[in-house]
């Protein structure tokens, strides 16, 4: 452990997180902690069916409950024009079902009562006459001729098709494949999983009937985007909406979109004239909020006999659930899946993605996936291992042979993306050295002799994070650029206001450190304000690892504006020309006369004083900026996982995990490592135990933490972290995002390790999750295909 220094901390480096002073003492303030005078409580009635026509809804018994104030159904909303709302993918989603329900757990009615218990009791008093309809739970059956049409609400929709999308050059790729010595194909599923933040979603809506101002406390990763969407949908004037995201207990992309419950708390407050709280429970959260993945992929890889990878061809069937509510830049229906070419120098690549509707919950978000990069990396890293299997090649060597070389950067992929910087072989070599790769292979060979199963899994990933630029990337027309405002008080303390919103990533510390690094102010002297649209500049929020690449850049640049302004003030104070000043860590000083200088604190006081300021300087010390990223940043890493498999039970023990991450310049290495630790645990969870499964009737089979398992410390080894540092050339401080790197890179390392362990049994591929039952099945000659739930 590195110790944390005690003198006032300034700039980059390890320092305790400012937010932990409240969070570790249980003094955080989450949405469910919000209690307003006269506040009422809402609860949703949800559909027990995956697909059913609603014949009628009888709310009379619920309305008769002594503590119930109102019961709202889809019919009520229809009258207000609010029964449907737009999704982030240019589709619509029912706020409360009117015609029929399309997935189990869909919102049907909303009860408002004096307390939460009564609201729940009254939900059970609502009688709905459902007429069950045939169900499409399996994406592979969604396009069958006889499949029921789920979205018959949409004009002209006669099947369950949503979109076709492609990337890369098909003819070029086909030609490479036609001439290749080796072509290997594999069907690879990335099962539906769930972000499962520990805090479920919720909101408290407070519509002031006098001022007409709506204050919405809500679990949002993107408060500004939410405000604008509410203004557009509900017709409320935007300046009369204040969205506050207080402390957020984990998001992982799950809290990017707008859920019917949020809207209903607003409607409830308008209807009753009182604040209305709605907080969903765990089962509701796992059943109805944005899932992730559900990508049915077929990969083909072309190579020479001696292991030079030539091309990749991929077909994806994407299950988007009942409404296309994927949270991603609007022009990117398959997110950034383009990066399925991974970290390799290829001659050609092509992929197609077809999105379909099913009778399952909508979403298809991040979950720390940087817009489908998790799926892309999983695909390519599995395919490389599949190729290694066929060529009887060592998976690390095969990767080493094909990685993009340092001198090739900036590197343009076959799908047209420009990777900014990297030294891939160095990262992989470091991971191999840390692991003792050759020794591990020796140990494995000895164990195999004795019939023991040990596996070594290798994965290399390239991430693409920090969306925009705004001209390419927008959400519902809102360009992906973010603002920052910095104000230095007369006494030299600073307030930074940013548009992104932490869900636990430590923004209050990291962003203070960026300001401190630019201005020489102690971290403790910089307050970071975020998560309140009335107090912060516009911007698109935190997801896709974009906070540091985008808002981190905005913060550095706004601090530099202050520094420039301070220079002019300092020149007035010192009575020298600005050209004679130079910046020295925390002060402007006279070139060649270091005795003569002024710190930011001194300058701040002067800027607010009666000092005569030079022409063109307005006084005070504040600045604003908007940062529109010129490109994404491309963090990368090399991961090696070591597992032991019990062949009698199929149980997998992750023995070691070596993670070398390169996220450019590290602002607070401790926070970076925390992000990596969390992502690695996530990866173990997805690889070994997680799937949101459904039966043929569309019944959700994972609506509790007894069914949907989160890994614990006992499933995780003591992580072994390494780093290389390749700064981003286009980011003001050379930083790249890191929030999702480990979630992107780790699942495949674990899966590759398990498959490496059971290679003697002739198993080339198996779908996640590799539960004991699944591994035992593979050992006994069964292909592992994770489809629906019950084998």
């Amino acid at each position, binding site marked *: 452990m590195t110790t944390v220094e005690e003198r006032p901390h300034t700039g980059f480096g390890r320092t305790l997180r400012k937010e932990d002073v409240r969070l570790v003492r249980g003094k955080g303030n989450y949405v*469910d902690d919000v209690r307003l005078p006269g506040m009422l409580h809402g609860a949703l009635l949800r559909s027990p069916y995956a697909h059913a026509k609603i014949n009628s809804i009888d709310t009379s018994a619920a309305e008769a409950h002594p503590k119930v104030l109102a019961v709202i159904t889809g019919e009520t909303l229809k009258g207000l024009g609010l029964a449907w709302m737009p999704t982030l993918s240019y589709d619509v989603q029912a706020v409360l079902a009117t015609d029929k329900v399309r997935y189990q757990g869909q919102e049907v009615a909303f009860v408002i009562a004096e307390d*939460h*218990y009564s609201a*729940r*009791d009254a939900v*059970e008093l609502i009688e709905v006459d459902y007429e069950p309809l045939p169900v499409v739970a399996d994406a592979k059956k969604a396009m069958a001729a006889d499949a029921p049409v789920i979205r018959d609400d949409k004009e002209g929709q006669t099947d369950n098709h949503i979109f076709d999308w492609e990337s890369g050059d098909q003819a070029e790729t086909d030609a490479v494949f036609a001439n290749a010595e080796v072509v290997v194909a594999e069907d690879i599923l990335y099962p539906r999983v769930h972000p499962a933040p520990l805090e479920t979603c919720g909101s408290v809506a407070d519509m002031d009937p006098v001022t007409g101002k709506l204050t919405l406390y809500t679990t949002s990763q993107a408060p500004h985007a939410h405000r604008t969407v509410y203004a557009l949908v509900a017709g409320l004037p935007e300046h009369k909406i204040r969205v506050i995201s207080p402390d957020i207990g984990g998001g992982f992309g799950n809290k990017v979109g707008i859920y019917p419950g949020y809207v209903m708390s607003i409607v409830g407050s308008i209807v009753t004239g009182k604040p209305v709280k709605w*907080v969903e*429970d*765990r*089962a509701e959260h796992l059943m109805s909020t944005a899932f992730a993945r559900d990508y049915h992929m077929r990969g083909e890889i072309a190579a020479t006999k001696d292991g030079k990878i030539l091309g990749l061809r991929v077909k994806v069937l994407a299950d988007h659930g009942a409404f296309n509510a994927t949270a991603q830049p609007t022009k990117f229906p398959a997110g950034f899946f383009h990066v399925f070419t991974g970290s390799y120098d290829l001659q050609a690549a092509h992929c197609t993605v077809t999105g379909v509707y099913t009778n399952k919950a909508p979403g298809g978000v991040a979950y720390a996936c940087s817009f489908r990069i998790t799926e892309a990396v999983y695909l390519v890293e599995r395919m490389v291992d599949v190729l290694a299997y066929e060529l009887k090649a060592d998976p690390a060597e095969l990767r080493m042979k094909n990685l993009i070389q340092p001198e090739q950067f900036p590197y343009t992929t076959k799908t047209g993306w420009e990777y900014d910087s990297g030294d891939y072989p160095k990262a992989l070599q470091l991971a191999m050295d840390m692991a003792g790769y050759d020794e591990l292979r020796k140990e494995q060979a000895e164990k195999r002799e004795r019939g023991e199963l040990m596996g070594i899994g290798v994965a290399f990933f390239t991430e693409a994070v920090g969306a925009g630029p705004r001209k390419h990337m927008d959400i519902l027309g809102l360009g992906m650029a973010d603002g920052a405002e910095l104000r230095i008080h007369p006494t030299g303390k600073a307030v930074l206001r940013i548009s992104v919103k932490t869900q636990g990533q430590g923004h209050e510390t990291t962003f203070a450190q960026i300001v401190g690094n630019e201005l020489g102010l102690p971290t403790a002297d910089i307050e970071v304000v975020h998560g309140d649209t009335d107090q912060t500049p516009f911007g698109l929020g935190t997801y896709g690892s974009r906070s540091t690449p985008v808002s981190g850049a905005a913060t550095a640049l706004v601090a530099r504006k202050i520094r420039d302004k301070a220079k002019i003030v300092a020149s007035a104070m010192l009575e020298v020309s600005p050209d004679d000043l130079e910046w020295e860590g925390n002060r402007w000083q006279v070139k060649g006369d270091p005795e003569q200088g002024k710190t930011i604190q001194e300058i701040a006081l002067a800027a607010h004083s009666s000092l005569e300021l030079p022409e063109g300087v307005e006084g005070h010390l504040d600045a604003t900026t908007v940062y529109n990223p010129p490109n994404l940043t491309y963090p990368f890493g090399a991961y090696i996982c070591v597992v032991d498999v019990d062949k*009698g*039970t*199929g*149980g997998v023990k992750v023995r070691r995990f070596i993670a070398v991450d390169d996220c450019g310049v590290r602002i607070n290495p401790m926070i970076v490592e925390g992000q990596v630790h969390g992502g690695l645990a996530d990866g173990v969870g997805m690889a*070994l*135990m997680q799937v949101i*499964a459904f039966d043929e009737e569309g019944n959700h*089979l*994972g609506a*509790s933490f*007894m*069914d949907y*398992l989160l*890994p*614990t410390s*006992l*499933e995780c080894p003591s992580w072994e972290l390494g780093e290389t540092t390749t700064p981003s050339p286009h980011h003001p401080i050379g930083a790249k995002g890191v929030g999702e790197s480990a979630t992107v890179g780790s699942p495949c390392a674990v899966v590759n390790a398990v498959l490496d362990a059971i290679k003697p049994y002739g198993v080339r591929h198996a779908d996640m999750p590799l*539960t*004991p*039952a699944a591994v*035992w*099945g593979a050992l006994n000659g069964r292909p592992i295909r994770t489809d629906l*739930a*019950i*084998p």
Partner: protein
Amino acid sequence: MQVPAPFTYERATSVEHAIALLGELGPEARVVAGGHSLIPMMKLRLARPDALVDINGLGAELAQIRVDGDDLVIGSLARHADLLGSAVAGEHFPIFHDAEKVIADPVVRNFGTVGGSLCQADPAEDLAAVFAALDGVATLRGPAGVRQVRVRELHVGPYETVLAPDELMLELRVAIRPGGGSAYEKVERRVGDYPVAAAGAAVWLDGDTVRDVGIGLTAVGAEHFAAPEAEAALRGQPATEESFRAAGQLAAEHCNPSADQRGPVDYKRHLAAELTTRALLRAAARARGQEA
């Protein structure tokens, strides 16, 4: 937050008081001990008792773990954590510590009770298999008085026991016999999860011969959580891996697992054999003093 349907709540001040309350409140009243099975089911509204009778104040009477003559006695209100921490239980029956280490998590173990586990009669309950292996006996008390029921006769089906609505489980007894060893083996998808399958074994050796044996199985649809056919076949046999494997096979043949997200039928049946064998091997090693 999930919240239960309305119910009333009474706190029992003695065993007699608890039984009287249950009688007064009628068959829709439930005892609440640790509440870690009952309350989650109430919050999901799968259980809707009219009333709860809280017995947590009866620790002095019901939470003891002690040796009484030739019996180990475990009070029904002993927490999982008490049993895990009990030196006397571990000394005589290491199977208790094996099992308690892998039941739920520390938070649940601090509250969940031994009696609550057995009365819940979850078909995947670990302690049911442990007490079946040890052939433990439960003491029940109702308005008419006290009766003894073998744990192997306590469960009549999933979530169903022979207890009358106004009967209370007081304690569990396990006979301490010389020459014994015991062990528990469980496969779970993740720590704290209910078992995919688990097996407990207790063996008593005469030299290298199995004098007596108890085998408990859970989560695999074994009737009364036991494997009587395997036990009968193993009695009098040499205590070798071969006979243990044969017993494991028999245990597997006679259980009746069902498929779910934890695994398919044949896998669970395989585990019944594999884990029974492993538990027998470890129990025998302990009986020989070869393993702690």
